[in-house]
């Protein structure tokens, strides 16, 4: 870092460490052996090694290590939830505070942006694998398969990027970071743009040695209550996608109710505020402690003035064509716990209330939308069933990402893709 930079890092980008900050932070790392941070990172970036490289002034080496392990390095450098993986595991946290690993690797890869990236690739094997879905899981798998020397056909409806491209709001993930990642990956696969349906799927199956299905979760769950068909009731993915692509076409009015208590609801609430809604209320049937969210997101929503109504759920949306109000029922934690280990919410009789609203955003989860995908066993929640090696119930068909385990994270999906690629490689090489 003391060297005169030949490829000057983009020092202007907000949220990216400058050289000095990176140096100071890198020096905090203890260089643990068999480091817990690396084990905790789903894609196992060799964290102490890349930090030591930053410390020695070898930013290109650091960036290479990060990128080789993480196909969406800049994206994760922006939105990997720092409270979930590497940072809570960091040994330095036992002394004072964890090393800010995510920001250090964002610094490393961003400061080496101008340099070409060449992973070690094996010679071509003559095998070909189809990857269905170009979200994090599909991209992670395609990258790894290409490194093994296999040809990869990547099928996706639209440009690669999955949920991060379509739905994650730009104020959390600058599009240029994602596009830089996907651009780097472009030469590792042949892209096929188009919607996969039953005939297309049949064709793909016949023409490849193995398949990896990574279609994510495309279908918003609905509330199943009266009034949901009204024009100003938005399924959350549709809302976020439109907010990204054509924000001016969204008519949400000034009072918005977001139903649901996850990160996606928080993104929707924050987006609604940024679109100009004066009052945004998040309605959640459990308490704040039960929200499965990252604290940075909830802080950001509060900062933007989002109101929270806990222990309440809607049971009817009232209006004529457009929403006018929402009838809500008060809830309380019941005695029993559900699958997630949280108390099942139960209704409190006689405590219903009205909330005036111009629109409602429904963010209560998503399901797999691939109806064309018949013949594969599903879990009872409708996700694709796979074994420990991401092999589905059909030989040669592998699956990963949110489509097998529900709403997750970018880095977890990448890890699925990476692990599946290894299993696919073993499978097709064994098959001969």
């Amino acid at each position, binding site marked *: 870092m003391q060297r005169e930079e030949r490829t000057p890092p983009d020092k202007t980008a907000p949220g990216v460490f400058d050289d*000095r900050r990176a140096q100071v932070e890198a020096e905090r790392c203890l260089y643990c*052996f068999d480091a817990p941070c*690396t*084990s905790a990172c789903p894609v196992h970036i060799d964290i102490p090694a890349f930090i030591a*490289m930053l410390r020695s002034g*070898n930013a290109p*080496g650091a960036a*290479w290590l990060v990128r*080789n392990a993480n196909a969406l390095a800049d994206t994760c450098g922006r939105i990997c939830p720092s409270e979930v993986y590497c940072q809570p595991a960091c040994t330095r946290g036992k002394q004072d505070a964890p090393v800010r690993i995510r920001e250090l690797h964002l610094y490393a890869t961003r400061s080496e942006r101008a340099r070409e990236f*060449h992973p070690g690739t094996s010679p071509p094997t003559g095998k070909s694998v189809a990857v269905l879905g170009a979200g994090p899981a599909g991209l992670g798998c395609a990258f790894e398969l290409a490194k093994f020397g296999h040809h990869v056909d990547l099928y996706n409806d639209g440009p690669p990027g999955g949920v991060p491209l379509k739905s994650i709001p730009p104020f959390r993930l600058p599009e240029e970071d994602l596009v830089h990642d996907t651009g780097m990956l472009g030469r590792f696969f042949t892209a096929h743009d188009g919607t996969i349906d039953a005939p297309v799927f049949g064709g793909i199956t016949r023409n490849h040695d193995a398949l990896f299905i990574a279609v994510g979760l495309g279908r918003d769950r609905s509330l199943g209550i009266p009034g949901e068909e009204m024009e100003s009731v938005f399924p959350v993915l549709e809302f976020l996608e439109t907010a990204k692509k054509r924000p001016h076409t969204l008519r949400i009015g000034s009072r918005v109710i977001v139903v649901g208590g996850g990160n996606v609801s928080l993104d929707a609430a924050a987006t609604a505020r940024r679109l100009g809604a004066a009052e945004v209320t998040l309605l959640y049937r459990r308490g704040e402690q039960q929200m499965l969210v990252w604290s940075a997101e909830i802080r950001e929503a509060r900062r933007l003035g989002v109101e929270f109504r806990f222990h309440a759920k809607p049971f009817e949306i009232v209006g004529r064509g457009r929403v006018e109000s929402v009838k809500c029922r008060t809830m309380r934690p019941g005695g029993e716990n559900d699958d997630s280990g949280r108390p099942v919410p139960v209704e409190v009789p006689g405590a219903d209330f009205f909330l005036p609203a111009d629109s409602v955003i429904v963010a209560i989860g998503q399901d797999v939308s691939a109806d064309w995908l018949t013949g594969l066993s599903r879990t009872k929640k409708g996700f694709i069933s796979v074994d420990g090696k991401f092999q589905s119930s059909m030989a040669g068909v592998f699956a990963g990402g949110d489509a097998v385990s529900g709403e997750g994270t970018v880095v977890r999906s990448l890890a699925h893709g990476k692990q599946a690629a290894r299993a696919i490689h073993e499978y097709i090489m064994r098959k001969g």
Partner: protein
Amino acid sequence: MKSEQDGAAGTAPVRDLSYELLGIQIENPFILAAGPSTDDIDMVRRAFSMGWAGAVLKTTSVEGTRVDLAYPMISSFNHDGKLLFGMGNIDLISAHHIDRVEATVRTLKTEFPGKLVAASIMAGKKDDWQSLVGRLENAGADLIECSFSCPQGNIGEDPGKMLAQSVAATELTARWVKEAARRIPVSIKITPQVTDIVDVARAVQRSGADALTASNSVQALMGIDIYSFVPNPPLAGKSTYSGLTGPAIKPMTLRTIAEIARHVTIPVLGTGGASSWRDAVEFMSVGARCVQFCTLVMHHGFRVIDDLRSGLSNYMDDMGFSSPLDIVGRALPHLAVHDNLPRRVVRSVIDESRCIGCEVCYVACRDGGHAAIDRRESRIPLVNPERCVGCGLCPLVCPEACISLAEA
């Protein structure tokens, strides 16, 4: 326990770093110095498979040499929260029998024909030096390194004193060794603690030896427990002087190598305080042809080789160098005696946009410079160009690196 992480992440691509050193083809300039990491064949095997280009095995001697180790033998000079900024050791030569060292050389050369395997020796009498050379040469060693500089003193005639502290003894002994080495090169490992390093280097050159290894640890007293007054390392109330190694001695080594390279023509093998690929580049830029590492590996393990290789590789790409040898000696033309230094007028300049207002520069200049920095309400200091002489102190203390010197 095998780590799931071993080798999983891959290593950054490295360009060709190979070149010829004393007629031996080596993969890269990074060699393990004689020390604990090279005293065991399995350790060297692991280092080689991880990418180290060679190793100088821990110093051996003739049968019957007493190696009476005393423990603990290592102590630390910590500075400002940095552990092992300097390492002290009261180690002696290898406790293994010469037969075992000979077998190690033979096995390593069979298993790793492309790696540099050097044997380090130390003895007293002429016959002993020469028989050691003969045996290790026959075992297949690529290079003999002679320790004339063990800080725990010499074996033989003048105990307590290092051989390389006598110019005459250095020349004589080096001649014996060179005489005995019929096929392979010999390097003499010297101490920086002499009145005139150039005299010693010239003596080595006159002896006919092929190279100098510069330089070994620096004899030092590692510290005192101020409550018991027992120095470090403590051995039941007693202690002794240690050999100081690691980052603390790097600037001394740089000067030693530079002085030697300016005055003799035989190559220098660098050692003494290198702890990164940058240090290695610095060593080479003042004349070293390769760089040996000991303390760094003792602290962080063989894994540091990944950064050494990748860092050097990227650096060479940036600089447009095609071989590590392109670095050798590049800094030497920039050295001059004080009288011949250019005289110019410089002043310090603070980049106010980056200043964090710690006022560390202010106090340093007030009490250690020329009181040329004034305080302001904003806590952003102001350099007074009338008083600033451009001594260069304030940029060195600024934690934000926001002070520079500019031509006035």
